[in-house]
């Protein structure tokens, strides 16, 4: 929104003791609300309204049609598998980046964000090249469910790493030393001390990765394709649009929308819980809030 400069003597100046260029007050709020409405709220409201144009019965019919259910189930199961895999490897990677020393560590640390920066369609193309029919490694699982899982692992990798990393960084290592001096082994220390401290980050990272996986489109498209067994919900929605069934597309969209809203809400609950229990710093909250859950490359 355009900030209106000095020509607006901000009424809040006396209250806050500073004068910022016309932000605040009704004008500022109005412009923000207007921008958000045009860009975000009206389009989403249009989808919701479209989904229910034929009444709630018709909506339900669309959502429970065999192909819609199949795609939703597939999306859900693949996303669950993906967050388990990335929860495991993401925690290991975060641990390596914080606690270990090895050559090239700073490069590895930077490369972790690659899936945020690389366009999803490019990710799909190179995964297809690497793990498709012409695989130089001799591994071919393109156009299978494994391909969906691998593509989703690729795009959601940074979430867990970046959510766990700040917690590991600030963890008080004296607790671990104390436990070790009392005779605890590595596994016990991990289970009783490290893991509980990482839990809020891990949970938030997993929730964000899950939300992203549910809606992912580009990275799955070329690599897993849209054959009847590999049609995830986002591909299903695209197919419905192309075949002119906008209500069906909108209905499945509403299901995805509600699911991701619930996940986002759970992330903010986790954050509040973590702050209350002094288990997350503001660093952690910032790190988690800045993660992009929806599509493509950033």
């Amino acid at each position, binding site marked *: *929104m*355009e*900030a209106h*400069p*000095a020509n*607006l003597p901000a009424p*809040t100046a006396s209250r*806050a003791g*500073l*004068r910022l*260029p016309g*932000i*605040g*007050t009704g004008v500022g*709020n109005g412009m923000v609300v207007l*921008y958000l409405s045009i*860009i*975000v709220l*009206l389009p*989403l409201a249009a989808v919701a309204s479209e989904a229910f144009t034929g009444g709630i019965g018709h909506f339900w019919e669309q959502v429970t049609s065999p192909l819609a259910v199949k795609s939703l189930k597939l999306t859900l199961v693949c996303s669950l598998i993906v967050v388990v895999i990335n929860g495991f*490897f993401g925690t*290991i*990677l975060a*641990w390596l980046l914080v*606690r*270990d020393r090895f050559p090239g560590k700073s490069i590895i640390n*930077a490369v972790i*964000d*690659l899936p945020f920066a*690389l*366009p*999803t*369609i*490019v*990710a799909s*193309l*190179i995964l297809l090249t690497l793990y498709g029919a012409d695989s130089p490694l001799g591994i071919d699982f393109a156009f299978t469910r494994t391909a969906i899982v691998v593509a989703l692992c*690729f795009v959601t990798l940074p979430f867990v790493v970046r959510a766990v990393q700040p917690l590991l960084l600030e963890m008080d290592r004296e607790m671990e030393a104390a436990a070790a001096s009392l005779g605890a082994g590595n596994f016990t220390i991990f289970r009783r001390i490290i893991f509980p401290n990482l839990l809020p980050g891990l949970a938030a990272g997993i929730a964000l990765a899950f*939300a992203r996986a549910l*809606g992912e*489109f*580009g990275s799955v498209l070329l690599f897993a394709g849209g054959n009847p067994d590999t049609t995830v*919900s*986002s*591909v299903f*929605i*695209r197919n419905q*649009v192309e075949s002119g069934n*906008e209500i069906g597309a909108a209905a499945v*969209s509403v299901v*995805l*929308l509600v699911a991701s809203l619930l996940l986002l809400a759970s992330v903010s609950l986790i954050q509040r819980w973590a702050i209350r229990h002094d288990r997350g710093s*503001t660093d952690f909250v*910032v790190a988690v*809030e800045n993660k992009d859950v*929806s*599509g*493509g*490359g*950033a």
Partner: protein
Amino acid sequence: MAANPASRWGLRVLGLGYLTMLLLIPLVMIFYKTFEEGIGPPLDAITSPDGLHALKLSVLMVAIAVPLNTIFGVGCALLLVRHKSKLNPVIDAVINLPFAVSPVVIGLSLYILYGSGGWFAFIGEEGFKILFAVPGMVLASIFVSLPFVVRETVPVLQEIGTDQEQAASTLGANGWQAFWKITLPSIRWGVAYGVVLTTARVLGEFGAVTIVSGSINGQTQTLPLFVEKQYANFNSTGAYGASLVLALLALITLFAMNLLKRKEDA
């Protein structure tokens, strides 16, 4: 946890092995595949009329969406941090929406809103084409990249506080002067980080844009759409060539992210 050498190596092999198979080898693959038959074919593909048009259109998306979302982002962050209001939690939640919504759903939402029978269908009927044209693609790009600048600016604004601005205004600076001379210089790295993320997201967006654009060769194709079309038309060299351009931009993004993070921390 003082991991013994064996478990330390175990973790290294697991973690870095996973990263290698998932990220590093694919990254090398793009370079290898693009130049497999020399530099000529990929160069021809990118410099073909359709390729150049896609590149231009991608730049146009950035040129429109990034400034708009930056101005909105800084203004909105100021509003959220400096002026407590009952609306703030609502605005905050709405700003997060583009992060939560599938790109395909974003594309569909614009498709329904501006398509025939939609609430804003009249705009197209007046002769100003939104769907299957550049305006729709711009709207999709703005939608998907909306939160970044706000999200990056809010924490920085919270951190710098208002002492210096107050000092400036005591010394007679007006609101606009205080903003340009005090506030903006203090938040610039945070804003810049948000701008980098916004740009990368706009350049790479596929799902939302593909639904609203129709991906017409040489008309409504951004680079990511060009990649998909080239691949679908069995011109994989063209697809790899355009992919390499996008991958290089992604690497520049990573570099800029790291640089700006360091500046911010400094």
